């Protein structure tokens, strides 16, 4: 299944949009949540960000979409310095966040939630074709298209959040734990969808995920955060071979694979 490629041209896009983050800081009062993060995502690249709860992963994504004020450092995207851009302008330029914990509008219908994802777009016809493609991909959502989104199960809400993100016509999609609350089967389907989007549209992905095994299987590179700093960066194979990381992030995954065989 293919989510149709959008034909619209965002005004502030360059064809080759890379994300470059230099020495980014975020503070919550006295808490120094990000302590000088530098990372980059090349056009068409899939980058995973791993780390324990409290490492700063969600703070990083919130800062990149513009919801969290930064306390130092620069963010460049598509050649422009976007550090001070509001979220709406970032979204129009193709930088889109699928937030943690779904954050759908429970009082609106499923269909309306998807339409909301396209708020910044003018190409109505393409939007409605993409909504159809998402319903085709997620039949559970299609069956409830006119129900209030609040009646969806947790997993269906997660699918809706991803669908809404796609409707914003992302060039670089940032996802904060897309497998949260999904069954093993749906987790597999969501990662298959991300893989398809990456292959078919050249979509870049910045992926925060506790499902280390799935994330590393998809990623070209990964960063590990600890207490607001990047402690390791490398290709998935390098990270899998790192004994320290193995214990914290991969240990039980290996056991699971053995249990499965």
């Amino acid at each position, binding site marked *: 299944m293919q989510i149709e490629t959008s034909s619209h041209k965002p005004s502030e896009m360059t064809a080759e949009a890379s994300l470059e983050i230099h020495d980014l800081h975020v503070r919550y009062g006295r808490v120094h949540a990000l302590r000088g993060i530098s990372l980059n995502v090349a056009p068409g690249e899939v980058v995973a960000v791993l780390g324990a*709860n*409290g490492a700063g992963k969600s703070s990083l994504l919130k800062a990149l979409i513009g919801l969290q004020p930064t306390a130092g450092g620069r963010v460049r995207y598509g050649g422009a310095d976007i550090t001070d851009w509001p979220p709406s302008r970032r979204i129009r330029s193709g930088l889109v966040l699928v937030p*943690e914990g779904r954050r759908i509008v429970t009082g609106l219908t499923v269909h309306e939630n998807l339409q909301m994802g396209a708020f910044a777009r003018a190409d109505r016809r393409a939007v409605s074709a993409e909504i159809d493609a998402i319903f085709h991909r997620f039949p559970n959502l299609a069956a409830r298209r006119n129900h209030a989104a609040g*009646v969806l199960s947790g997993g269906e809400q997660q699918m809706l959040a991803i669908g809404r993100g796609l409707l914003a016509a992302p060039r670089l999609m940032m996802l904060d734990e897309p497998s949260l*609350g999904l069954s*093993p*089967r749906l987790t597999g389907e969501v990662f298959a969808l991300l893989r398809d989007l990456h292959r078919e549209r050249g979509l870049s992905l910045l992926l925060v995920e506790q499902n280390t095994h799935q994330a590393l299987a998809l990623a070209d590179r990964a960063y590990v955060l600890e207490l607001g700093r990047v402690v390791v960066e490398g290709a998935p194979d390098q990270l899998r071979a790192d004994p320290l990381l193995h214990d914290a*992030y991969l240990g039980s995954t290996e056991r699971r694979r053995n*249990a*499965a065989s």
Partner: protein
Amino acid sequence: MSEAPILMLDKVRKNFGGLAVVEDLSFSVRRNVCTGLIGPNGAGKTTVFNLITGVYPIDAGRILLDGADITRVPSRRRIHHGIARNFQNIRLMPHLSAIENVMVGQHCRNSGLFGNLQPVTLSPRNRWREEARAALVEAGLEDYARGAVRGLPYGVQKRIELVRALMAKPRLLLLDEPAAGLNSAETAALRELLARLCRQRGITLLVVEHDMHFVGALCDEVVVLNFGRKIAEGRPEAMRENALVKEAYFGLDSGQGQVCYAN
């Protein structure tokens, strides 16, 4: 005849509008037998929790706790019968601190005017506050005890909810995706915490969870739902081999072993 199960659902049905979301559902949870409730997204797992806790009235059937029919007991009273829970979509009070949120869970253990006032006293050496703090420490959350819970990482808020539920001193604890948002080291720590709680305090767990490694290590029994009906039950390792469960839950596509067991 062994003792009555701690929880029994007997031919329970629930409709939302014209849609049957739980149908003819019967299963039991035996005392001190940690039981998993698994199934595809939308199978009705969270709805079953809402029926057991009385958030929704059931349309047919009975719910028994320790042999006593609680079908008509209102939701707010069920905690006094020893049922506590957490929520899949976190429901903490965002402006309160972790300690204050946990102290909300102590409320049901007080009765009368003075009892009601006790937990809100501001004295820093208050025994209720101390109990809440100790419980957070036991769960490895001491670093997060003081500030507002708004903005704390998802996996941390999830564990604060667990600690709040424990404050009710439940005999039956319903956990909706307790390991969601935790990495594998944090998941292992949570599993040890839960196993210890069950052993030391005699709490029986009913757990909804998608991390099958977690379920396999923690649960002795598993009930599998699909479209609001029970399609299988038994030991976790038997469920992994069950054809119906494989198709509905794990998926049959290539690389299924990795899809199944990777969290």
